[in-house]
């Protein structure tokens, strides 16, 4: 019955042709604005040096070449610390940071979303407010703490603080509020499941899209880290740092710079695409409609 009223033919009753057209137009305009600079960035990476300095400049490459990438790899091979080491450093920091943050933040988010206990509101307010305080002035106290814990010049100086990253927790709490039904938790409790089991076996599978989204956010944040104020040893530095050093060689490195930009851009995009396909998969199968 409801279906009949809801759809006219294949279209929902609340939709109109005019509206669909306007939306299509908006999407096409938005998409071109977003895509053109990206196309420019990609095509630049394949331009030989004489095309990078061409008048009038062109959006698209004419004689694509892989020279920029070749030069980049030659420069990488000449580096004092082997490139593979920088790559390992970056991966280690990203993966450890990600696992810790997703796990600890989800635990806390579950308690904040589904338990009632004194202090919960204050804690949540502090989380929200902490997002609004400038990080730069907290660097000094953080340096002192990290030095006191003996973590300067270790991966942990970046990894452990990232476990307490608040954005993910706030996100997770919102998802748990709206996706997880209290009745489901009650039912599991009656079945005698422990709180941790409920969290791990009931709640976490439901909010899979949430922690997949969270992984993207943390990846993005940690992927760009250079080790900043806490890592000084050259062999512990990360890939973005190493690539920055290569590009800092001036105008002659412009082609290499374009190749580097593309490289640094491709990896998060690949992670994102892989991640999204998982999200779409869960959305399709788990049937959020129940």
């Amino acid at each position, binding site marked *: 019955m409801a279906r009949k*009223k*809801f759809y006219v033919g294949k279209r*929902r009753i*609340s939709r109109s042709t005019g509206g669909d057209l306007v*939306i299509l137009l*908006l*999407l096409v305009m*938005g998409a071109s604005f*977003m*895509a053109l*600079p*990206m196309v*420019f960035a990609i095509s630049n990476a394949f331009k030989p040096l004489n095309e990078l300095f*061409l*008048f*009038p*400049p062109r959006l698209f490459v004419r004689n694509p070449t892989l020279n920029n990438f070749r030069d980049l790899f030659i420069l990488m091979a000449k580096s004092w610390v082997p490139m593979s080491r920088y790559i390992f450093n970056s991966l280690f920091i990203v993966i450890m940071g990600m696992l810790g943050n997703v796990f*600890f933040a989800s635990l*806390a988010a*579950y308690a*904040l979303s589904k*338990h009632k*206990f004194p202090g*919960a509101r204050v804690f949540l307010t*502090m*989380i929200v407010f*902490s*997002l*609004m*305080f*400038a990080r*730069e*002035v*907290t*660097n000094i*106290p*953080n340096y002192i*703490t990290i030095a006191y814990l003996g973590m300067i010049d270790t991966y942990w100086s970046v990894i452990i603080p990232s*476990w*307490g990253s608040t*954005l993910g*927790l706030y996100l997770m709490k919102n*998802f748990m509020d*709206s*996706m997880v039904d209290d009745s489901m938790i009650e039912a599991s409790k009656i079945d005698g499941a422990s*709180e941790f089991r409920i969290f791990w076996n009931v709640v976490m599978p439901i909010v899979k*899209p949430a922690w997949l*989204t969270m992984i*993207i956010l943390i990846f*993005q944040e940690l*992927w760009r880290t250079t080790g900043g104020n806490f890592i000084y040893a050259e062999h512990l530095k990360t890939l973005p740092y190493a690539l920055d050093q290569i590009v800092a060689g001036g105008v002659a490195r412009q082609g290499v710079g374009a190749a580097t*930009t593309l490289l*640094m*851009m491709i990896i*998060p*995009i690949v992670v*994102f*695409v892989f991640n*999204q396909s998982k999200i779409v998969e869960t*959305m399709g199968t788990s049937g959020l409609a129940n």
Partner: protein
Amino acid sequence: MNNISILPKGELNRFQRFINEIKQNRISYLFIAPFGIIFFTFTVLPVLISMGLSFTYFNMLQPPKWVGWQNYIRLFLEDEVFLLAVKNTLLYAAITGPLSYLACFVFAWLINELRPRVRAFLTLLFYAPSISGNAYMIWTLIFNGDTYGLINGTLLYWGIIDKPIQWLIDPRYMMTIVIIVVLWMSLGTSFLVFIAGLQGIDERLYEAGAIDGIRNRWQELWYLTLPEMRGYLMFGAIIAITNSFAAANEITRLVGFPSTDYACHTIMQHLHDYGTIRFEMGYASSIAVVLFFTMVLTQRIVQKLLDKVGQ
């Protein structure tokens, strides 16, 4: 009644009740503990310390010296560059904040009903600029000041201008260009979260709405979708507020620091100037505190506005 004996007894009861309450909820506290300890050590504590430092003169070599409200007085009465930064930041935030927030929601909403594959493709297209690290630096080639810049080159070639325009150095254009670039990369976190949120809304809600007499997209959006999205909307608002009020990095990389005539100087850049270049940590902390309260105030206002959604 004997007040003296009742008071301590009541006190004791209150303490005992407190302990009992903690015991009852110990599982909740255990769940929060690992995150809470790290959060407290690396966020809450440093924030409190720098709030304290904002009342001191601290050059990072000598121990901090207490100066009372001096830093704040200096900020608002003596530091003209700061006032300029406030003006710029407010202008910048007033434009990029609401626009990026709206863009995130509108595009998430528009692509929500498309077929999964098309949706995934468009999500990637819209999200790519914000995820791909320094890709926004491509705009410095587009707006490059010499003849090799894409815009300059094209305009020169077409004969619209006869000498290159210094897009990123001329104060007349700088702010506009910064805003364009920032909007380009603004479909980030909130955009993703909105998409996930919209996907999570139960289809049956709309079927029920259709029976209740919802006739078009707008009614559906206002009465069904937005109220359902309230939590996510607040989340997006907070991101928009923090991004727009605390802008610095992108601006510095686009137009340099300091920008010509301080035309793009923001509060956050001012803080950076004093914190990491002039090593006046006390003063930098007072800037952070002012910025913090500005954001909190804005967040409160937005909260009030969002409470009206769907009514």
